[in-house]
């Protein structure tokens, strides 16, 4: 359903961003296969509705923290995909001059403060940003994205406790994609809904269909309002599924094909398209144009990245200290 608050133009914008993430990551996957991207590449294909749904409701001066699977979060915040692709390819024109790579994206101008290669590593950091935001009393807030795997980290629990005690304007967005790295959540905890942990610490929590853009936006709207009015923190658990492996090249043998096919039917992009068509907000042609535009932009980003220089050896001693 489309709420009254979702104006057509805004919804199409948000939808465009979902396609931008999808196209970006599909291209990244190809470049990875061609060995243009080093290390490990974690894709969020299938989870775009969470990143876009949540970030589309933020202000530029809010703080957003991601994890190891965070290209989507950065793009949802409005990151420049040229610099992002260049970073993935380790080029000097990348967001971090090539020193960060896929897992350490920073796009400060968009509010995307940092990603991390450590599971749960940014949860306490978001707490700090929320702490700083609360001090300023200007309605700023912090959002942190993490997976269900982080729910078993001590830092996660300590952060929920502190956020609750100090009523910090933090929104914890747990993308429960059912798998922590290579094993299903049930192998990591007996807790089915990570939102339960938040409730234990007295934090308002809800679980939503993370593949439903409009549902994510609806619950996020309420969370943002709460935090801006100093009524935080809020915990949102988004049930979703990554359609790729844990990282590119992961054969994902732990997952049944039938299950994957079932989730493919729930593809968040397809679901928004269905709504847009049904409500006659966009024709098939419009939708095709949006996809084509995203793919063109991504092709350009890839070209930008691959024609950018790799950093010179002297760079290693630079930027070690401020």
């Amino acid at each position, binding site marked *: 359903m489309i709420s009254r608050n979702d104006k057509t133009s805004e919804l199409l914008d948000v939808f465009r961003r979902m396609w931008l993430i999808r196209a970006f990551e599909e291209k990244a996957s190809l470049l990875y296969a061609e060995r243009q991207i080093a290390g490990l590449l974690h894709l969020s294909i299938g989870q775009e509705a969470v990143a876009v749904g949540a970030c589309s409701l933020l202000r530029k001066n809010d703080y957003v923290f991601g994890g190891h699977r965070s290209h989507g979060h950065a793009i949802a915040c409005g990151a420049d995909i040229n610099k992002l692709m260049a970073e993935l390819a380790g080029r000097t024109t990348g967001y971090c001059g090539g020193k960060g790579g896929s897992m350490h994206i920073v796009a400060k101008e968009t509010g995307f403060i940092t990603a991390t290669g450590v599971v749960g590593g940014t949860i306490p950091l978001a707490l700090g940003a929320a702490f700083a935001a609360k001090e300023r009393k200007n309605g700023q807030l912090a959002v942190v994205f993490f997976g269900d795997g982080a729910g*078993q980290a*001590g830092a996660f*629990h*300590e952060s*929920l*406790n502190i956020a609750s005690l100090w009523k910090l304007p933090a929104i914890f967005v747990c993308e429960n994609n059912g798998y922590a790295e290579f094993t299903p959540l049930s*192998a*990591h905890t*007996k*807790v089915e809904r990570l939102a339960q942990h938040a409730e234990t610490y007295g934090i308002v929590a809800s679980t939503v269909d993370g593949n439903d853009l409009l549902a994510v936006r609806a619950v996020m709207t309420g969370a943002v309002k709460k935090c801006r009015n100093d009524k935080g923190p809020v915990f949102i658990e988004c049930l979703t599924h990554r359609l790729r492996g844990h990282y590119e090249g992961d054969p994902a043998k732990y997952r049944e094909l039938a299950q994957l096919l079932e989730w493919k039917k729930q593809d968040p992009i397809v679901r928004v398209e269905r709504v847009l068509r049904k409500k006659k907000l966009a024709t098939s042609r419009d939708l095709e144009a949006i996809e084509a535009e995203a793919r063109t932009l991504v092709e350009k980003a890839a070209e930008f990245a691959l024609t950018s220089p790799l950093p010179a050896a002297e760079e290693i001693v630079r930027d070690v200290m401020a």
Partner: protein
Amino acid sequence: MLPKTSRESLLELCRRMFVIRHFEESLVPLHDKGVFGGHYHLYIGQEATGVPAISCLRADDYLFTTHRNHGHLLARGADPKKLFAEILGRADGLNKGKGGSFHSVAPSLGFLHSSGVVAGIIPLSTGTAYAAKAQKNGRITVCLFGDGSLEEGAAPEAFNLASLYKLPVLFLCENNGKYGAGRAAAAAQSSTMAAYPLTDLPRAYKIPAQQIDGMDAGLVHATISDAVEKIRGGKGPQFIEAQTVRYPGSETNWPTVPQPTDTSLAWDVGSVPEKAREWYRSCDPVLIFIRELVEAKQATKEEVAGIERQVKIDIAAAVEFAVNSPYPKPQEAERDFFAQS
């Protein structure tokens, strides 16, 4: 209420409570005189939790304890002479003087490692439980820790593992701050823990959890016996929060003894300084226990006083032993930090 057990057992529980009480009351002046250094923590006020709880265990069960470990070791039957010597850093100590109050151990009694890090033992306790389960030897592990440990991420991490792997471990949380320093009365939330009641934390992991009065030896005995039976029966971890009222001598950074314990106080607290009197009147678990013993006619006042007298003699001898025990040779510092194969 009194534990449902034989008269002999009740008198032995009584004796062990006295051992803890007089051991620690003797410790405080030794520290004040500079006989040993470093920080240390008293178990006084929690005897009716530790003594009956530990009496429910099998001889080969594992126990993990914290910086507040003297009571647990003594309840399990550790030699007071060796524990004193350890705290004084002597060669005859439980750890040959290398552990001190924080880290006193007694492997033969199941205490493999005592940690001075808050919550440091909680993950370790899941490790021994995991091993026991793998070896199918029927041993359980009891992890004894304070309420502050629950603020550490290590605690939920360990609860999660224990629940997930259905480990034979009893998490016995001794909340000695029921009305104590830094905590408002029980109905209010603490300034450092958002979860209330504390049993919500293990329950989130589907670990059965209950809150009990830790000053009621009979209730502790019944609850722990039941939990131990379930755990040994393969039903996975259990969590029990035993609430006690903090000993007034532990409310300062460095422990004090507001009033040396004596059996006579069970019926007359007139000699206790007024500030601490209420605790001795209604919250001192040792005095509660001996009152119940006498009221139930399991022992006369004279018998109880006799037990206490002998404990005092034993403790005095233990102090004497420890003070006269030699310090380890300096070269000992360079030994025993790698196991020899």
